[in-house]
């Protein structure tokens, strides 16, 4: 049984048909990169996986739970699906440690001490153990994004969704964030990345999904897809970005 099951999902924004029947199965431990032009529906698809966006037709299940936009269901899903954003979205009024411990304490009912230990564990994983008591604005963009990853990991999700998480970073900071992802992948975390980092998608990803006009246009083994695109649309896209 796949960890994530996306079955013929359609979504409309008014008259705009943004997802036109997407089917995708993701196995536990897989690293999937979703690539495509802006407006191809890739971010929307990602945001449907944890209920941040609703969909109009079809079905999505994660960890055998149906994904809906219902608050209770999203709360349950949050224990299985984590998400990291392009703009970090750390809570600026809380310290790094408080950013990380808030949800485990409230949602998973972890004790304050356990949560603190957990925070140090996940911070160590992203190499920022010494920043526990800093505020987000005291950190660089790359560090903030690593804290955001740590915050998601503290909920111990089975799959981590990453929405263009390096796009807002200065080029020299991108590497640190990608290294963290690579380590997570090596540890067996299921990752779904919407990304413009083609090298990363090719070298670390297991599978690449190319989205075009709201559909999965082409998909397959990461290295093969980049080496021999089957559709002219993907060829054009690769030529443009590489």
């Amino acid at each position, binding site marked *: 049984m796949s960890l994530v099951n996306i079955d013929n999902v359609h979504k409309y924004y008014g008259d705009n048909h943004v997802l036109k029947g997407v089917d995708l199965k993701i196995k536990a431990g897989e690293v999937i990169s979703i690539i495509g032009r802006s407006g191809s529906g890739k971010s929307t698809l990602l945001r449907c996986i*944890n209920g*941040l966006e609703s969909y109009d037709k079809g079905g999505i299940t994660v960890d055998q739970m149906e994904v809906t936009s219902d*608050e209770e269901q*999203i*709360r*349950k*899903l*949050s*224990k299985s*699906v*984590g*998400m990291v*954003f392009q*703009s*970090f*979205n*750390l*809570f*600026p*009024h809380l310290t790094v440690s408080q950013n990380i411990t*808030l*949800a485990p304490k*409230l*949602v998973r009912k972890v004790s304050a001490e356990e949560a603190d230990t957990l925070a140090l564990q996940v911070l160590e994983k992203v190499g920022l153990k010494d920043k526990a008591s800093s*505020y*987000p*604005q005291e950190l660089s963009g790359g560090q903030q994004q690593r804290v*955001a990853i740590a*915050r*998601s990991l503290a*909920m111990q999700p089975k799959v981590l969704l990453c929405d263009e998480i390096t796009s807002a970073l200065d080029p020299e900071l991108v590497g640190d964030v990608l290294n963290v992802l690579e380590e997570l992948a090596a540890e067996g975390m299921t990752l779904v990345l919407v990304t413009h980092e083609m090298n990363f998608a090719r070298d670390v990803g297991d599978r690449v999904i190319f989205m075009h006009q709201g559909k999965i246009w082409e998909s397959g083994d990461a290295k093969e897809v980049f080496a021999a695109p089957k559709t002219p649309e993907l060829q054009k896209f690769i030529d443009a970005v590489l």
Partner: protein
Amino acid sequence: MNEFTNWDIFQALILAARWTVVLSLIAFLGGASVGLLLTFLQISSRTALVRIARFYVELFQGTPLLMQLFLVFFGLSLLGIDVSPWTAAALALTLFSSAFLSEIWRGCIESLPKGQWEASRCLGLSYFEIMRHIILPQALKVAVAPTVGFSVQIVKGTALASIIGFVELTKAGTMLNNATFEPFKVFGMVALIYFLLCYPLSVASRHLERKLNVTG
């Protein structure tokens, strides 16, 4: 005819200014309570509640405070409800300030990036947890300065209550002017007392704005 010394006039005005202060406090506290409720209605996801709150806010923002005072004072009397100038002034100022305060606070809440909500939802926080731990603490910081700033408008707004016969600072000034025929002196003092009440609030508002903006 009695002779009034400057000190007599000033003393009488200061005594009357008590009621300006008390009325301002009531209007602020009443306005804040109703305003808070309206704020939550305005940001709720129920369209009907949002509409009701929007209508209320537009109504009281879009009509002069003086008309609101008249309508409460004379209107309720017409309906057979006897209202004292006190009640009418407190009620009208509460209605007026609640509309403005709720608009200020709605703006503060909506000025926070949408990503704060999204990240919180992804972490599984409920609406109330998001409000309590993420949105309100941040919105409060943004709201303090404009809220204190608006309290200046409330203090000055209480002057209108003089027209329905409520004896506060402005009304006392009018009465003393009628007795002394020295409008420049009397209203000069009235203005000075208003300034002494409002200036510290303005300074506090600016100070808070600077202070709260330093740390995220």
